[in-house]
């Protein structure tokens, strides 16, 4: 058995099977167990490594040839495989509370398999093609979530503007990355032709600007979150942005002149802080819960770019990968809570969700604490790593640290505004939790995990510290 067959082929086949299953609970259970199983296999039987079970010797071949090209997952991808499928299991498990299992689990499994293929294809320049196929597959996922919301009587805007813009934006990015890849391969050893280097850099910049939804090419994200199910958007965009970042790091790792370029950190820093500040400040003025979460996600993209831009690459990568778990956890809890509130009110504008704390205490806590976690509030999951990043930025430049603080303040303020709105309830309303038991259990576990990771950040470190080693040069 080869690794691509196990971590790409099997999930694709499983996705088709899950689509055919009649009961949503069964889809959730099977999807979650399968994702956990794939995580377990990655842990105990990493690709390209021989394991002994008594007299039995097991080895998973790392490569598969597909239409003349290699699809390779080697031992260096072990941690990433564990992280991706572990994260998938978390999101799939959440559908117990929010529903939409057939869409999120079945299509989500296929999307994750395609995203894994994007990292496994050799040469990696073709990754953008697989990402684009995953984007196309996410259209029915987002659209079906929209139909479901509409069927539940949601007051979502009767348009597909956000979805269309998402499709356009992601599709425009792919050709730029492919062309940049071709030009870069011509200047692999060193920048012989300055004009060609500039052309390749501009194409690469444009491609990733579209792919990662950096400012100002990200107006579709809040619109999309407003139009469709927040949990679906949260799942999809967390996955897409994570793979987009890993692909960007692959480019930096592969080309020595790009890796050693003195301009690259400056460009990343500028784009990162611009994306972070605009997201943080604009979030503070929003009046729609899903849009706020979308701005939270955009801010995280800015934070990631800032982490990559740090002069000490090792620390930058450590911060980047350490933030993955708190981010996934916070966005998962946040969008799950919003989804629960949306099912009740059909509308996520402040006027519609006012005073819901007495009927949805745990969902309210989920919205507030996740928001605060992504704002870098002490004792919550993202705090230790955001704080480290902030300190590093302050050592480098005061204005950078100042703007980082402004963005965090914006996210913090909107958390307080949301808290005020959700608790603005008449005195005669009884405290009566209307969340279902699966929702209560999942939200409680999630909230506990947010605090646990914030208080004991070292818990996730054994897994995450080895992630940078997947890069040949950056990780060493």
């Amino acid at each position, binding site marked *: 058995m080869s690794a691509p067959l196990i971590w790409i082929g099997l999930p694709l086949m499983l996705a088709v099977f899950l689509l055919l299953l009649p009961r949503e609970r069964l889809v959730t259970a099977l999807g979650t167990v399968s994702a956990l199983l794939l995580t377990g296999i990655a842990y105990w039987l990493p690709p390209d490594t021989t394991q002994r079970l008594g007299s039995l010797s097991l080895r998973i071949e790392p490569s598969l040839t597909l239409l003349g*090209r290699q699809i390779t997952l080697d031992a260096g991808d072990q941690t990433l495989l564990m992280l991706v499928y572990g994260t998938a299991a978390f999101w799939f498990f959440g559908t117990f509370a929010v529903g939409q299992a057939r869409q999120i689990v079945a299509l989500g499994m296929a999307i994750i398999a395609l995203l894994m293929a994007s990292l496994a294809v050799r040469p990696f320049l073709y990754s953008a093609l697989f990402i684009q196929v995953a984007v196309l597959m996410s259209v029915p996922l987002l659209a079906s979530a929209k139909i479901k919301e509409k069927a539940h009587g949601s007051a979502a805007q009767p348009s*597909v503007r956000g979805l269309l813009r998402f499709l356009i934006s992601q599709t425009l990015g792919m050709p730029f990355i492919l062309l940049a890849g071709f030009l870069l391969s011509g200047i692999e050893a060193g920048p012989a032709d300055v004009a060609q280097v500039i052309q390749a850099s501009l194409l690469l910049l444009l491609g990733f600007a579209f792919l990662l939804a950096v400012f100002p090419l990200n107006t579709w994200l809040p619109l999309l979150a407003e139009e469709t199910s927040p949990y679906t958007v949260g799942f999809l965009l967390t996955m897409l942005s994570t793979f987009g970042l890993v692909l960007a790091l692959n480019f930096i790792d592969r080309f020595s002149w790009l890796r050693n370029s003195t301009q690259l950190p400056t460009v990343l820093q500028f784009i990162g802080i611009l994306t972070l500040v605009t997201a943080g400040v604009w979030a503070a003025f929003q009046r729609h819960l899903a849009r706020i979460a979308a701005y939270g996600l955009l801010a995280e993209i800015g934070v990631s770019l800032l982490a990559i831009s740090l002069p000490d690459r090792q620390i930058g990568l450590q911060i980047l990968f350490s933030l993955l778990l708190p981010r996934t956890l916070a966005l998962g809890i946040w969008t799950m809570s919003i989804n629960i509130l949306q099912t009740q009110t059909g509308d996520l504008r402040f006027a519609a969700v006012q005073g819901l704390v007495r009927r949805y205490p745990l969902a309210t806590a989920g919205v507030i604490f996740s928001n605060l976690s992504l704002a870098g509030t002490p004792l919550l999951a993202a705090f230790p790593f955001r704080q480290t990043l902030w300190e590093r930025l302050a050592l480098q430049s005061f204005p950078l640290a100042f703007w980082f603080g402004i963005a965090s303040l914006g996210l913090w303020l909107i958390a307080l505004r949301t808290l005020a709105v959700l608790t603005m309830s008449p005195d005669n309303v009884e405290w009566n939790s209307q969340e279902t038991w699966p929702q209560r259990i999942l939200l409680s576990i999630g909230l506990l995990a947010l605090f646990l990771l914030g208080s004991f950040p070292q818990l996730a470190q054994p897994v995450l510290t080895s992630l940078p080693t997947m890069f040949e040069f950056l990780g060493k």
Partner: protein
Amino acid sequence: MPDVLLWASVFFLAITSTSLLLSREWRWSIAFLAAQYLAAFWLVEFHWPFTMSAAKLVTGWMAAAVLGMTQLHAQPTLTNEPSWPQGRTFRLLAAGLVLLAALATAQQMAGWLPGLELPNASGALILISLGLLHLGMTANPFRATIGLLTFLLGFETLYAAIENSILVAGLLSTITLGLALAGSYLISLTAWETNE
């Protein structure tokens, strides 16, 4: 292949992509899209084996067919798009300007990528720029999908000169077909929402 045939394809591409921008009747749009794939096939065939180019042509026609079938059912709600600006003269002028800009930069583009001939660069840039112009002028899923397909076809024409891997060709065909299917899904969704 004689140069005159290649330039004839480029001329044909300019006609079809401009017509796509001007057309208000979806049936004509589908016909122009199909014709556009035929013209691009001649350009791609210059670099790729006949079978691979033919696969691209068939995929494009399938995409056009998918869009046409969907539009047939969604027709009552999507024929008249109230988009700005509506005037055909404005669109024609904009298309003319973009065409001029594309042709002016084609020479430079041909120098960028080794193996890329001037007619191919011209055809690709015409498709890319008019596809982008189309995308900038509409919020209608049907027209946006056509704009995206035009943009992608332009890129494929360009990329064919530098890459002839079967895997890449297969994935690009999958993306073309996937775009048409995703566009159809969005057209149906808009029609469904309007009918609700």
